[in-house]
């Protein structure tokens, strides 16, 4: 699989480390049910067939975390953006 890093260009997947679902948001530790939320956050994963936004780390390249939109059935990558930009956007959205 080839992943187009927004900074480095297209590279083989062996340069990247995989983390997983990028839709997960670190829960508020002060919430009354924080423990249950963290348990979900750390352990529970969906396994969708189709497009999934997921986190990859360009470990052998620019050290950027990326949000890669990948079809889990075909490995087709339809979008990549720096995770930092996505995270800032998420924060702005509240």
């Amino acid at each position, binding site marked *: 699989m080839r992943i187009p890093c927004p900074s480095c260009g297209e590279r083989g997947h062996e340069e990247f480390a995989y983390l997983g679902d990028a839709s997960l948001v670190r829960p508020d530790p002060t919430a009354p049910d924080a423990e249950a939320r963290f348990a979900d956050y750390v352990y529970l994963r969906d396994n969708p067939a189709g497009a999934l936004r997921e986190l990859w780390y360009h470990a*052998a390249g*620019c050290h950027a975390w990326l949000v890669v939109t990948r079809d889990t059935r075909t490995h087709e990558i339809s979008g990549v953006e720096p995770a*930092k930009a996505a995270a800032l956007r998420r924060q702005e959205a509240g």
Partner: protein
Amino acid sequence: MAEIVLSPTSAFAGIPRGRSGQTDGPPGVIASERTDLAMATIIARKGQSAALRDTVREIYGLKLPIRPTWVGNDELAFLWSGPDQWLALATGTIGPLSPLRERVGVRAFASFEDAASETTASKALTPPFPTRGRGSPAGGFVDIETELRESIGAFAAISAQGDGRAVLRLSGPNVHDTLAKGLPIDLHESAFKPGDVAITQIAHIGVTIRQIDSSPTYEIILARSLSLSFWSWLVASSGEFGLDFT
């Protein structure tokens, strides 16, 4: 006890110079080590990217690249090394705190920067003051960390990398054939040009590669601790063409 005198040991100091691999005819690959380099990582502080680039341009006459390329010359170069991150390379064995700005100041780079086709051609600048030899008591490397902290520290975090990376220049008619045996990126002239930089790996060893000129000459920058493993790969991969280590 007598006054302490420390001499540096370069990353490839233990490797004998000369020919290896196939010895018929001219070598397919020519390698040379760049020593006496001082390095520092520059990372733009939050929200200071533009100010940092302006200041570098003002002080050093160089445009900090925003994509994987490099600017500068053999005396001082800035290599893109990630989003908002650069590696500064400066030649060493010059006094402790050198007036780098004077040596590689705006004037020296004026024509260099505008000549698009030559953006990265090396220009050997004559240092304006005598250099000190290796191992002289007060010798050492350019204190690039202090230099950059003073010049751009307001806009960037400066981290000394000392001489923690080994640097090899590679050229010769079979340099592409050899690099193809480890480097997973495309060096074809349509894909990689003088002035380009890539951070990747060769034989599981993290490297930064930059193209120096169109002959083509490349520079490979890697972790110093891995230099012998890298050398083992280079010797094996260039063997059929012959390698000359100068």
